[in-house]
Structure formats: C-alpha cells, structure tokens
C-alpha cells in the first residue's frame, strides 16, 4: 500500500509540469523519452533482445554447460540432444557454450568499434563543418580517401598489414567506419552554424570548443546515434566477415563469424553447427535495427 503510494508520487514527481529543481527537470525529461520509447513494441522487442543477448554473453562463464574450448573428438558433430542442446562442432565442442562465449567477442568488438567510431566521426565532422575553410577541406579530403575504398577490402588490407587478431580487426573496422559519420556530422553542422541560436551563443563569449562540444555536438548526436544503430548490423557482419576470412578472432576463440566459417563445410549435413551462430547474428542485427528505428522516432526533433 505504502509502496504503491510512493511509486505513484514518484511518477507524479517525474511527470510534473513544473519541476522545482534542475534534477527533477532532467529526470522528468528522461522519463518522458522512456515512456514514448516504451510505446513502440518493435523497438522494445529490439531493446529486450539486445539486453538478453548481452546478459547471456556476460553470464557465459556461469551458464555455459561446457568449456567452449574443450574438445571431445569422440563426440564430433553430434546432433542436438539434452546434453548438447545445439549439438557439437567438428572438434566435439559444445555449440551452445561456444555461441554464448562468442557473444562476448562479437558483441564486445561491436561495442569497441562503436566507442571508437562515434566520437571520432562526430568530432572530425563538426570541426570541419564549424570552422570551414582549410580545416574543412583537409579533413574532408581525408574522409573522401577512406570512403573511396570498399569497407571490407580496406579492413582486410589493414589487418593483413598488421597481424590478424581481435584488436587489429577492431581497429580496421573502426578505421573504415568513421567517414560516413564525419560526413553526416559535417552536413548537420553546416546547417546549425548559420542559425541565430548558435550566433546567440557565440555572443555570450563562449569559446569555439565550448560551442562545438556543448551546443553543436548534442544537436548532431541524435542522427549519429540513429545512423550508428542502423549501421550496427553491418558492423556485426563485417566483424563476422573478417572472422570468416580468418582475419578476426584466431581460430580457437569462438567468434560468431569464425564459427560459421569453419562450419560451412557441414552446412548441408550437420546444419545446426553453422545455423546457431547464424541465428545469433541475425537476432543481434535485427535487434539493433529495430532499436535504431525506435530511437529515431523518439529523438527526432519535433519542434513544430
């Protein structure tokens, strides 16, 4: 009873039309966004799927029934059974355990790529757009050079030049993924820098860096976040493709793409071996896409 009353008043506190403090206003704003997002079932499905996938991957050491690297050559390519829910692969390793551990690598790589790409693309794009002139021309030509290469080829060349491995795969994908973000951020900045509200902030005497980071970047962020979630699936696929080509995670480590690559020989006979990581990739990509759609609906400026 009292708990219900407390939760009611918290809701009222959040939705108050006239917040009393900055803290209340900020939380109320977030709560409203969340309410709107929650109203979109597909986006909620995407978010839940992602949370489940990430939670399962994080908890892999606790819930995986077998050691993902433990070989059992006597039980190769076993069909799904109660002991091995998704069967075993060509070295007798449990596919379920490998998919769970593989999530850590694949999703971890995706997160690492995103953490590199978004800030780099955003900052380069905004600097080019805001300052214009030589900075703009120099930065955009560099961007053009990177855009001119097909993404996978450039990543392959980069990984091959260093050494195959997770770190270099992350670096390679990040290197090839930032230019579209820089372009996007620049195009938006070009519009924003001409507006009166940015002029008004310049007239407060704020430094260029303050304007870029505190006033222009938040304006560009929604479209970058949205583009990012829509790009997420293609990043997963690039990660998988690099793994598939043997340029990503090294063979014993269970990366989803690499798993499909090694199992492709059995695709017609022991279909469960490549299918399970394939399904995992499919759900992760789909979830990111739906989440992106939902975020776009919530974050898109609704001014009029």
């Amino acid at each position, binding site marked *: 009873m009292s708990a219900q009353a407390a939760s009611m008043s918290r809701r009222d506190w959040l939705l108050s*039309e*006239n*917040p009393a403090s*900055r803290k209340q*206003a900020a939380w*109320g704003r977030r709560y409203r966004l969340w309410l709107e997002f929650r109203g979109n079932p597909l986006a909620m499905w995407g978010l839940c799927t992602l949370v489940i996938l990430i939670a399962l991957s994080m908890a892999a050491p606790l819930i995986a029934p077998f050691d993902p690297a433990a070989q059992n050559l006597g039980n190769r390519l076993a069909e799904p059974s109660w002991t091995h829910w998704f069967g075993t692969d060509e070295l007798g390793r449990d596919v379920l355990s490998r998919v769970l551990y593989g999530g850590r690598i694949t999703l971890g790589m995706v997160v690492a790529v995103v953490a590199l790409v978004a800030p780099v693309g955003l900052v380069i794009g905004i600097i080019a757009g805001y300052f214009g002139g030589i900075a703009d021309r120099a930065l955009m030509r560099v961007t053009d050079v990177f855009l001119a290469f097909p993404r996978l080829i450039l990543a392959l060349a980069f990984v091959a030049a260093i050494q195959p491995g997770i770190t270099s795969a992350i670096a390679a994908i990040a290197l090839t993924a930032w230019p579209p973000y820089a372009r996007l951020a620049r195009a938006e900045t070009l519009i924003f820098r001409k*507006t*009166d*509200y*940015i*002029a*008004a*902030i*310049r*007239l*407060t*005497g*704020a430094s260029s860096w*303050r304007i870029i980071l505190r*006033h222009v970047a*938040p*304006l560009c962020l929604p479209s970058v976040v949205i583009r990012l979630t829509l790009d997420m699936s293609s990043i997963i696929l690039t990660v998988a493709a690099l793994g598939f080509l043997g340029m990503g995670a090294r063979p014993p480590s269970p990366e989803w793409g690499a798993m499909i690559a090694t199992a492709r020989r059995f695709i017609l006979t022991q279909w469960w071996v490549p299918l399970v990581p394939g399904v995992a990739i499919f759900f992760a990509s789909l979830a990111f896409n739906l989440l992106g759609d939902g975020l776009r609906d919530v974050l898109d*400026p*609704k*001014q*009029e």
Partner: protein
Amino acid sequence: MTDMIEVADLRVHFGPVEAVKGVSFNVAEGASFGIVGESGSGKSTVLRALSGLNPDWTGSMRIAGQALTPKRSRDFFRRVQMVFQDPYGSLHPRQTVDRALSEPLVVHGIGDIEGRILRGLAEVALPATARFRYPHQLSGGQRQRVAIARALMAEPEVLLLDEPTSALDVSVQAEVLNLLSDIQQQRGLTYVMVSHNLAVVSHLCAQIGVMQGGEMVEMLSADDLRAGRAKHPHTIELRTLSTELEET
C-alpha cells in the same frame, strides 16, 4: 554626456559587393538609436559588424571609448549583447530556458546562477514555471522574453536589437516594446535598434538613421520625423507609407 557607441566610416564587403558604404553614427550613454531601412539596405549588417558576428569590416567602432577589433574579447561580450529578430530561431531547440539563461553566467564565471535565473525570469515577466520549458513549448512572445532575459544575464551596457518585434503579433509587439523601454529605464542601457518599421523605431528611439543601399542617407530625431521635417526623399517615402495606413 559621453558617447557609448562611436561608429565612423564603417564599411562591410561581401565578396565584391559593398553592403555598407561608410556609415557613421554616435550613440550617447543611455540613449537609443534606431536604424530604419528596407531589406538589403545594410541595416542588419551594421548591427552584425557591431556585435562581432561579422569580422570582415573596415573603419572604426568604439564602445565606451575602446576601439573594437575584428576579434572580440570575452569582456566585450559581457558589455554588448544582442536580441535577434526571430524568437523561433534564436533559442537552441534542444535546450531549456534554464540552460539558455545559465550559459552566459557559466561562460563569464558569474556566481549565484539559481538566484540570477529566477530574478531574470521575473524581470521579463515570465512565470517561474517557464524555467524548464523548451522553446517549442512557449509562444513567440514568451520566446522573445527569454531571448531578452538571456541578453541581460551578464548585465551588459549595450543591447543591440535586430527587428526584435517584427516576427510577433501586434499585441505582443506592444508588450515587448513596453518591456524594452522599462528595462532601459531601470538599467540605463544603451540601445541600437534595427527595424523596417518606422513607427516601431520612432517609438523606442529618439534618434533615427535611415539607410538605403548601404548608406545612411539621413539622420534625424524622432520628433522631427513625427513633425514631418524629413529631408531625404527615401525618408519621406517611408514616412508617407507609414502614415497613409494609420489614417484610415
């Protein structure tokens, strides 16, 4: 009485086009100067050069005796503030009123943000409940009040007004004009106001400069204008158009 603003032979080029061709005027401390002209006359360009938004100018401009350079110091922006024409465009769409008003305080390191914001809202007659609203939740008149409050936050001495009421309904225009004259009286501010509307300018400003084609073709007092003592044909034309409508 000293002159707060001195502008001499100001010229502004946009590429090969000279948009402002040697404009000079002085404004005494606490006085209001109005610049009237049609679009393309260069009136807004003068204001933008004065405010520091357009660094490509030649000539001399002084505020309180200090010569202005193309690049302005932070101190300048404490002294001179601007209110823009379009209240829909001059407030950051993603920032609350609270954020808009606190920004100048943070930039200039002024303390007591909480108290100053509340007093700032009260000064422009906005309710305290407007504090955490976004611009799109406010009416045009309320937005312009926020823009005025923001300009006053760092306690400037000079306020540059770029068509501050032309995007507003006439009833709201009256409220904003009254607010501007109240604030000027209380704070002793110096105003430079740009408008295409002769009646609005002569309501707020005692001295008026008429611009046409980048030149200031006539300077006269509002009293002279009302009494019909204008000399330049363009001033006379603008005055006729304005009074013709009033008479019906």
